[in-house]
């Protein structure tokens, strides 16, 4: 029975109906949009992808997780948002974090280097590295709510976008199973590291 259902729900058979559904789905008419509320979600959603320093570090977390395999593959994306939000909370309640921009740039350098070198740290150490950098990212980016926007929706959008960046990294990192993919992944780590050095130069100059 389960096999039969699974066979019927094969991705290839579900794709076309899904495509039809999304093509003909009518858009809702919002005559009186609460621009502040909706804007809060969109602002939060777009914020993590608007800064390249944030983007490369988030993607690198996913790449490194994919290289490390289980259980780091899922522990890192679970730990990161929570520690990032913790950093954001520190910023919001007024606890300063010195050298935030430097910390963000260093995160890209270190994470890129870890991917480049295919470094396999023990799980607890890997989580510690990612959690430390997550605090810097949260402190810098999680606190930038524009006036009049809904804080809850901003936070929701911010966290979802960050999670999606991790997912991009993990999905890309799946090429690790092939020899050529492993080399490409290390190349991606080198790019992240180079980007981090560029941002580090900007932060300290």
């Amino acid at each position, binding site marked *: 029975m389960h096999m039969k259902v699974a066979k019927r729900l094969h991705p290839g058979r579900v794709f076309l109906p899904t495509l039809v559904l999304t093509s003909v*789905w009518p858009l809702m008419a919002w005559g009186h949009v609460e621009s502040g509320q909706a804007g809060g979600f969109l602002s939060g959603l777009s914020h993590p992808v608007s800064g390249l320093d944030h983007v490369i570090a988030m993607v690198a977390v996913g790449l490194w997780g994919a290289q490390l395999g289980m259980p780091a593959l*899922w522990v890192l994306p679970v730990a990161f948002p929570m520690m990032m939000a913790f950093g954001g*909370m520190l910023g919001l*309640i007024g606890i300063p974090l010195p050298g935030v921009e430097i910390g963000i740039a260093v995160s890209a350098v270190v994470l890129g280097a870890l991917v480049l070198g295919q470094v396999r740290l023990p799980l607890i150490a890997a989580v510690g590295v990612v959690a430390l950098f997550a605090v810097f990212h949260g402190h810098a980016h999680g606190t930038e709510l524009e006036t009049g926007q809904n804080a*809850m929706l901003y*936070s929701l959008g911010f966290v979802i976008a960050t999670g999606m960046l991790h997912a991009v990294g993990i999905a890309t990192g799946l090429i690790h199973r092939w020899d050529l993919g492993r080399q490409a992944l290390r190349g991606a780590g080198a790019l992240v590291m180079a980007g981090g050095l560029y941002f580090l130069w900007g932060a300290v100059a």
Partner: protein
Amino acid sequence: MNRLGVRVSVAAVLLAAPAAAQAHLVNSGLGPFYDGALHLLLSPGDLLGLVGAALLAGLRGARAGRLTVIALTMSWLLTGMIGMRLPVNPDLTWLSVLSFLILGVLVAADARLSPVAVASLGAVYGALHGLLNGSALAAMSAAPSALFGIVLAVMVIALLTAAAVVPVRALWARVAVRVAGSWVVAVGMLMLGWLAQGAS
């Protein structure tokens, strides 16, 4: 395209066909009911904990799912009615955020709680938010059908979410549920910070 694909495509087109706009729903007498149902869907603060409780119940199996859906819905309805009669005035936003943050932690940790414990947590969450919803409805002098709209939406969302998670066995899918829990925690922590700043 095979027969199943044709059926699903036809069903999709029928579902997506635009319906007439009901600009004056008050004529049907169901306006407050839909207002209530829509209120929940547009209230992320209520939704996050509701989804968190349902995810936790789903992770713990079918019995936990059944008990939680019943306990959550009934407590939401009962305290909602109490709130409409005896509204509470204190601002409990902190407590509301803290409640969904705790549920998110339990989902992210895949906490091995008994079905009764999960249902109890769901009941506490439902009781808190039912009281808040009922009090808000009393302040607006809203009709009781608004509360029924909210509670029906609560039941549908909890039921669908828990039912979607109960059969999940694949590791990646259970991990996805736990990641969702970590997102709830993250939003809760950021909200605590915003509340400390006076935002809402």
